[in-house]
């Protein structure tokens, strides 16, 4: 520990001793605060600042940056950039459809909230998809959607195709309708990726609700039963109000998950076909570090827009926390 002795007995320590409750918190905080500031807080402002520049990430020989000030030009360009609007539209789509994870998670939690033998193991196995990397989830679903040898393709063959064997003994398929290639279709690819993303997210919401259901007050349920409430009514009027904290966290993590969606898109479509599955997170990455040279300024402008959207949710979350803190005192 860097700060061991506060009671040596000299003049200086008596000042320290008097003020130790004022100084101590800063000593405890300093390492985390400094480190967090360097890697998280300062870069946020740097990014916003950079969004008013045009910069390819290079430095001159004397160490000065080659960035040049362009004012709001990057934002004006964004306004006229169809790819930006597609990404934004897809982000909205993600936000809306990803929310399905919350009721779906609740549904599974209600289904599993029993105490029959082996239930604990079942619950944790249901939670499985959340633990594995989204890269892996993306690969699995990419393969599922494959029209030639994926699940979709196989089901399709069973429904619409006839197998013919030629003289050489090779099987070929004649299909009345071609199998859908979900991830290559500009219309459906985003839905395909969101469906894949829902799988782990539902698992996450489920575990939040299972924890919440554990703490639902039994006497209120009993009181509800005596009043003749059951089924949906009981769920809506008695149980859900008590699950509010769980719902709150589930919504928060789902919003963040939706806006952070990057891994699956990078794995499954890389924003394609024709940019139709881009979201701001991926479009920013693709723009800032592209094969055609870095565009740090423009990328930062996209990142700033994404940040501002997130800021709405962050502010709401902090406000809620602030209310709780006030209530606690």
């Amino acid at each position: 520990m860097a700060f061991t002795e506060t009671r040596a007995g000299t003049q200086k320590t008596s000042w320290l001793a008097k003020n130790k409750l004022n100084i101590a918190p800063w000593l405890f905080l300093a390492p985390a605060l400094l480190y967090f500031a360097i890697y998280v807080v300062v870069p946020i402002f740097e990014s916003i600042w950079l969004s008013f520049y045009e910069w390819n990430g290079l430095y001159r020989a004397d160490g000065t940056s080659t960035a040049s000030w362009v004012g709001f030009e990057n934002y004006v360009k964004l306004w006229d950039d169809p790819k930006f609007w597609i990404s934004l539209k897809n982000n909205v789509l993600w936000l809306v459809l990803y929310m399905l994870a919350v009721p779906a998670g609740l549904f599974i939690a209600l289904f599993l909230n029993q105490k029959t033998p082996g239930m604990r193991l079942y619950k944790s196995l249901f939670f499985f998809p959340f633990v594995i990397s989204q890269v892996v989830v993306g690969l699995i679903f990419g393969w599922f959607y494959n029209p030639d040898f994926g699940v979709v393709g196989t089901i399709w063959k069973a429904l619409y195709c006839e197998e013919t064997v030629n003289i050489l003994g090779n099987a070929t398929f004649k299909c009345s309708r071609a199998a859908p290639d979900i991830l290559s279709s500009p219309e459906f690819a985003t839905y395909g990726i969101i469906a894949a993303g829902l799988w782990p997210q539902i698992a996450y919401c489920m575990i939040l609700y299972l924890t919440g259901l554990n703490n639902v007050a039994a006497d209120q349920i009993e009181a509800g039963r005596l009043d003749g409430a059951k089924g949906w009514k009981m769920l809506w009027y008695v149980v859900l109000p008590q699950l509010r904290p769980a719902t709150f966290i589930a919504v928060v993590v789902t919003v963040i998950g939706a806006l952070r969606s990057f891994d699956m898109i990078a794995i499954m479509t890389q924003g394609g076909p024709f940019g139709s599955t881009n979201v701001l997170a991926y479009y920013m990455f693709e723009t800032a570090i592209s094969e055609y040279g870095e565009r740090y300024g423009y990328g930062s402008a996209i990142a700033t827009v994404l940040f501002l959207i997130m800021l709405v949710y962050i502010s709401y979350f902090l406000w809620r926390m602030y209310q709780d803190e006030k209530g606690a005192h």
Partner: protein
Amino acid sequence: MFPKPIENSSATVRTGYQAFVPVALFIWLLPMVAIFMTSVRSAEDINSGNVFGWPSEFALVENYIAVFERSQAAMYLMNSFMITIPSVVISVALACLAGYALAIYRFKWALPLFFLFVAGNFVPYQILMVPVRDMSVQVGLYDTIQGQVFFHAAFQTGFCTLFMRNFIKALPFDLIESARIEGVSEPKIFWYVVIPLMRPAIAALAVLIFTFVWNDFFWANVLTQGESAKPITAGVRALNGQFVNNWHLVSAASLLAALPPVVMFFLMQRHFIAGLTLGAVK
């Protein structure tokens, strides 16, 4: 308890439920089952189109050995451990200190600084990407394991501090008060009084951060270029390009990438779930 305990229902309903849960689980985990079954198939099965039927032979060991022999999977896995473990240690340690400061001392900056950590933990990665990448290039941390460790540790400190502060806040304050009256120094209170009580929180955070950092893919792409510092998540993607249509090998590699967090989860399940609720769902 809601819904109604199934024990109170008729025997038919009970048996029906108990029979249905495993079926539902199987459907739910079908993607995992499918990928596992694929990873034990032989190349002949894949080529002849037997992707869903019963495997003609089991090639579990062969496939996994092939992944290690024909790719740099071992290096990627090693990198992942070398990135993840130090990140967990650093962020949890810093958060213990910061969480203690924010929970125990009453000073006017306590709440604003706490909110700074909370807000920072929720920002989109992209807003940090360019400056962090530029900084890493400047100080020679680009394309290194350490560069990734430093970033992950710093970023996860936000979440860890959120968690630790709430956890310590819920501890009985009298303990600290009475230690102070006895003249115990602040660092000693932290070390001998608070840390022992924080063990469950430390365990919860450790498993959770392990999973978060292990599964990172974005920063692996931003902060590395070559193969030498790539973690397994980025590695699996590279393998996917390398093993085109060798689905049995891609599946095996994917399962290898997924395995360590899964093992962590099963070993420390209780702690893991406590961590996921952000310490907020009591």
